[in-house]
């Protein structure tokens, strides 16, 4: 008993005060990119060539955040002449096109469909399906249940049965072998239901794009309501997106 009490005191209170108070991430964290539009086109081309995800549209000075794994290689060229990454983790969007961006994303809260907030504003139950990928997305979704993030204080929970769920949270590029199980899970969720594509894999195939063994993006098989980019998305990106998109008073 003594040990329990001693540990309890040592551990203290750890829940984050986000979103009431802002939160700072270490400067190396790569969030929303800042694109420098005056950059020499030759450097932009160089960035596009080095990008392992083919995520840079050099002619338009845009980055497809649905493909980008935020590896930071483009930032290392010419001291970030084309792109530097901000620490802004607020990167959820409601459309795939919005992710192909010049450094700005539409504000999620303003654009999110108001009836979602009405329907799910106080309580949102999600069924998570891992459909390929590397499991880091799942791991960083799981941590939302640790004391620091404590997702359930917002009325949002991950549930075991799709019958109890309001929506589907999908990670992974949807491997061919998971497609059937994923669709069956979707079918089992009562309507109205929402679908969230989380991580580069589920948005575009991520690092596995062009593999013949994956579907290569959730939206090819299901209608997606919310996209959360990252490889994996930082837990705060997920928290931010869920709060902005669904809850009434984030």
């Amino acid at each position, binding site marked *: 008993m003594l*040990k*329990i009490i001693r*540990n*309890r005191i*040592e*551990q203290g209170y*750890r829940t984050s005060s986000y979103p009431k108070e802002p939160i700072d991430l*270490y400067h*190396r*964290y*790569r969030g929303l990119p800042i694109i420098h539009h005056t950059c020499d086109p030759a450097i932009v081309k160089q960035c596009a060539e*080095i*990008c*392992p*995800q083919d995520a840079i549209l050099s002619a338009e000075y845009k980055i497809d955040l649905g493909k980008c794994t*935020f*590896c*930071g*290689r483009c930032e290392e*060229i010419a001291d970030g002449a084309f792109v530097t*990454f901000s620490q802004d983790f607020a990167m959820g969007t409601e459309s795939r096109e919005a992710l192909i961006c010049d450094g700005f994303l539409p504000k999620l809260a303003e654009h999110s469909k108001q009836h979602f907030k009405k329907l799910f504003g106080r309580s949102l139950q999600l069924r*998570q*399906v*891992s459909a*390929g*990928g*590397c*499991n*880091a997305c*799942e*791991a*960083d*979704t*799981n*941590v939302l*249940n*640790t*004391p*620091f993030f404590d997702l359930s204080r917002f009325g949002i929970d*991950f549930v*075991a049965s799709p019958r109890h769920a309001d929506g589907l949270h999908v990670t*992974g590029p949807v*491997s*061919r*072998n*998971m497609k*059937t*199980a994923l669709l069956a*899970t979707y079918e089992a969720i009562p309507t109205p239901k929402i679908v969230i594509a989380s991580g580069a*894999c589920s948005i575009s195939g*991520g*690092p*596995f794009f*062009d*593999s*013949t*063994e*994956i579907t290569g993006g959730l939206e090819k098989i299901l209608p997606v309501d919310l996209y959360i980019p990252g*490889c*994996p998305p930082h837990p705060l990106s997920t928290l931010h997106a869920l709060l902005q998109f669904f809850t009434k008073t984030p």
Partner: protein
Amino acid sequence: MANLLQIHNGEVVKRSAIPLLSFPEFAEVLTDFINRNGFIVQFFAYPQNRENRLLAVLRNKQLYITSCTVKESFDSLTASASEKFHMFEREIAEQYGITPKNHPWLKMVRYHANYRNVPDVFGNDYAVDIPGEYPYYEVEGDGIHEVAVGPVHAGIIEPGHFRFQCAGEEVFSLEIQHGYQHRGIEKLLTRVPLKRLPIICEGIAGDTSIGHNLCCCQALEALGNLSVSPEATIVRTMALELERIANHIGDLGALSGDVAFNPPAAYFGRIRGEFLNLLLILCGNRFGKSLILPGGISKSMNREQSGIIKNKLRELEPEIRHVCDLLFSAHTVQARFEQTGTVSREIAARLGLVGYSGKASGLDYDARVFFPTESYFSLEGYRNEITNGDVNSRAWVRREEIMHSIHLINTLLKRSEELCPKTTMTKISLEPDACIVTINEGWRGEISHCLLTDNSRKIERYKIKDPSFHNWTGLAMSLRNQEISDFPLCNKSFNLSYCGFDL
């Protein structure tokens, strides 16, 4: 042993230098080697001169390589020599359509068409999505029942399918079917530009991003003649150890949760996050993705980063000790951990278990000691005391490894007073007609990558082995004659990778 070529970890050898035997010779050499306390690191098929070749990488205290030619089938070594060949032979059948004759357990591994477009060994039609026509092992009789779980499990976890054959609570047999996470990685790696390789390898298993990418980058460095600065080596070693600590802590938390002892579950859950954040301090990503590049590391490490790590470790080390103490001294926990899911030393050796699963059963193999890379040449090895092979031992090894890793990182931090420069991914030209094997001790155990290049310097075969490939069978064995309610505990104590296995 003229039929075996001794090689070193991370050493480039000419493909022509690899011994080429007839199958009977090959079988004899391998059987002999395995019988003398030898283990398999890699065993796979590849095409050469329109022939099918089998290549084996073996280890005792040293590393060896050998190969042979086969036609459309060969006599199974699982049947004649050892269970250690079991999964490897099934994989050869699936990837290349070559039948290991008389294999006692010939089933699909990941459910995909073979690479050669020859008739499928299992008679599957891959044009249809996974049909579940898997020939499960069945037990019949009064009071026998079957429990099926997955592919979609209750929590936020990867897909896999488990079949338990039970009499009441008691489990006779557990069969594990994989393949749901199959992304075709090995094939993909041979047809994409080199710039994509590290990112794909980081995606083999996200909890082992550092381990797998390190294997990949070491191979590319050797094949591309790139040297790595000693400072970068220090950071890479530290990152591998941070990855180990984060995962072990996470698992100790999960184990606490499974025996309904919630305080350590919550504390460990939070502390694991602190270690992921240290990886973010190094490279901007909580899983260490993008840190390692062929030739070094992507971000410099200077006093700021090393200072943060040093201070964090000083703060967390006593906390970890105290929470471990809380967990391991609770009688309720001991009652559930001890003598649960036991894998004897003999079974562990027969199956060739690696990592903490092997160490907990008394196999002292640690790739950091046997085949050191990076900074491990000059670091203290690790040996665990408790080797009963049960859940308790597997948990205890984690505790000891965590403490050992913290000690290693502290040692490395003292050495890294100098700024470690960053590197960028450059164009590499690979050695032609070459073969390389890289091995590292990831947090789950031995990870190995083997690459073969062709005469135009392209990668012709990229073979990956995650430690889970050896250890899933260990989990199945640990459930024998246990209560089915012990499954979560056994499962978490192994915590194997689905995606690392599925590839």
